[in-house]
């Protein structure tokens, strides 16, 4: 992650002085954006750069659902199954995806293309059901629209 340090330094310009610890989450997010996950060597590099205890970074990586220490599929399909989405058809969508891809939520297809996850409320209840593909919200999803979406990205 050393090549990202210049970018990290820019983050500091709008922060108060001496709050290196605050950079932990932004740096981890940026590292993950690039690598797809956070590697052990990234953790070591971040410890050197920020001077925080290594355990703090390990804890943070284990606490936040969006951060991961292992790679996942190229396309991360995240289906919200909270209240409003379940009331507007999230469960049939989830079943459909699981059958179509042949994986259970939490798993990745053997060819490494798709990872299926269930997630909690995404703040998009008015356009339920919602599926997030990598970072993008796909709202008002029906099974047909999902099939078309998957055709499109496959």
């Amino acid at each position, binding site marked *: 992650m050393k090549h990202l340090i210049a970018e990290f330094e820019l983050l500091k310009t709008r922060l108060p002085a001496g709050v290196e610890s605050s950079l932990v989450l932004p740096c981890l997010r940026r590292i993950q954006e690039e690598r797809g996950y956070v590697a052990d060597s990234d953790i070591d590099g971040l410890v050197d750069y920020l001077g925080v*205890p*290594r*355990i703090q970074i*390990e*804890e943070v990586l*284990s*606490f936040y659902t969006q951060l991961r220490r292992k790679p996942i599929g190229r396309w991360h399909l995240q289906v919200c199954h909270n209240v409003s989405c379940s009331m507007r058809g999230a469960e049939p969508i989830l079943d459909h995806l699981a059958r179509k891809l042949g994986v259970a939520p939490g798993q990745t297809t053997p060819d490494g293309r798709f990872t299926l996850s269930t997630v909690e409320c995404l703040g998009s209840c008015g356009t339920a059901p919602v599926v997030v593909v990598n970072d993008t919200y796909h709202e008002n999803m029906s099974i047909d629209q999902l099939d078309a979406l998957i055709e499109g990205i496959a």
Partner: protein
Amino acid sequence: MPELFINGQLVLAEKNQTVMQAAVANGISIPYFCWHPQLSVPGNCRICIVEVEEEKGDNWTDIACNMPVSEGMRVLTDSPVVLAHRKAMLQLMLLNHPVDCGICDKAGECTLQDYHFQYNGAPSVSRDAKVRATKFHPLSDRIVLDNERCILCSRCVRFTHEVSKSHALGIQGRGDHSLVRAVENGRFEADPYSDNVIDLCPVGALLSRSFLHKARVWYLKATPSVCPGCERGCTVQIWHRKPEWKLQALDPRQNTSIARVTPLENSAVNGPWICNKARDLARIFERPRAEHAMLSGAPVALPVAIAAAQRLIGGVEHPVALVSSWGSNEELAAFKECLGGRFASFVKQDCRFEPGEPTEDHLLIRPDKNPNTAGARKLFGDTAPAFHEQTDLVLVWGEGFDFARLPCGAKTIFLNAYQQPENARADIFLPVSIQTERRGHYTNFEGVVSAFEPCFPKDPSIADAEQLFAALAAPPEARV
């Protein structure tokens, strides 16, 4: 100095105290798991909740450990509301706690057991399976962690951040899948204070591997002692089998060995902590012992060796003594009185530090790895040992002397507790007792004097140095 009322009793508190601190200082007990007087307040166990009375009847409850005292406040620690709450908290804490008491080392000194009997006593009302987690997770080579027993009080984590400063423990994950874990770079393994988390743990989640399944604590007795590992002289408790509970074992050593070592709280020296070297005192004390007096390597009865030593001492002109920095104040005083006039005496550093042993740190560990250098130097000064051409006798008391440095032609009298090749090469060898076989005092590097008590009986063929010095100083015809 705010005045408040706890259960109607007037309590004088200090200005920035919490209700918990004020209660503890006044002998009023409020149950707690996560609170500890030497650590920060996380307020997560929620068992110390107390009720505060308000005039208009709108009483409120909150945790006592984070509640600042205020003038005139009326606190109730045993009201129906509080008792009901404690039962509820214990129910929740025991919800997933495995019923391991029968095989858990902590039984008998477990806060959860104690509070369950005192405040709850009811069986679980759950009929759901308990959440399973890792058991026997090796947190380090020395400590085993059972996550199912863990109540996530975070004392161990806070200890490594605030006291030992290794920052080596943390809590991974979240919710009821949270797990205490050590940092992945091995810093916990290298933390010389790691074992304090075993004492801190209120339940049987963190256990000592060396003590694992060795003994039930109620069969053991804790004898106060002083760790000889360095000049800090932390006070400790040495646990060993109670005489009335001795095992009918073939090997008598099972009843005369150290089961474990824990801190003896001491505000003047070590607070409630000790380092791992103190935990491993058995390694130091239970090395093979020298059991027989010898003359040039030939075993003889103790009185024979003493008589030979008396004659030798009586006949030399320039004797030098190397005095043990492991000697107790009493033994050192006896040497000074009995032999100090005859011998040019120097204080010897019995122990150097082992490779890899920490030399000094911010907490307890000191560079001088001997318990009573201060006591010895007070009597014998701090000049480095020196021989000259006319030195005709060297009396070495204790370990750590390099016999290659012996001046040619000098005789040797060697007093040692442990088996060493040099024992057989001394002209006169006298086996002596160790700290756990007698009482005495050490003076630490700051001048604090601490006492140790005997744990085990001494073998009759072994001498107590204190009596030995008197005997050695007597003229040869005197009987021992």
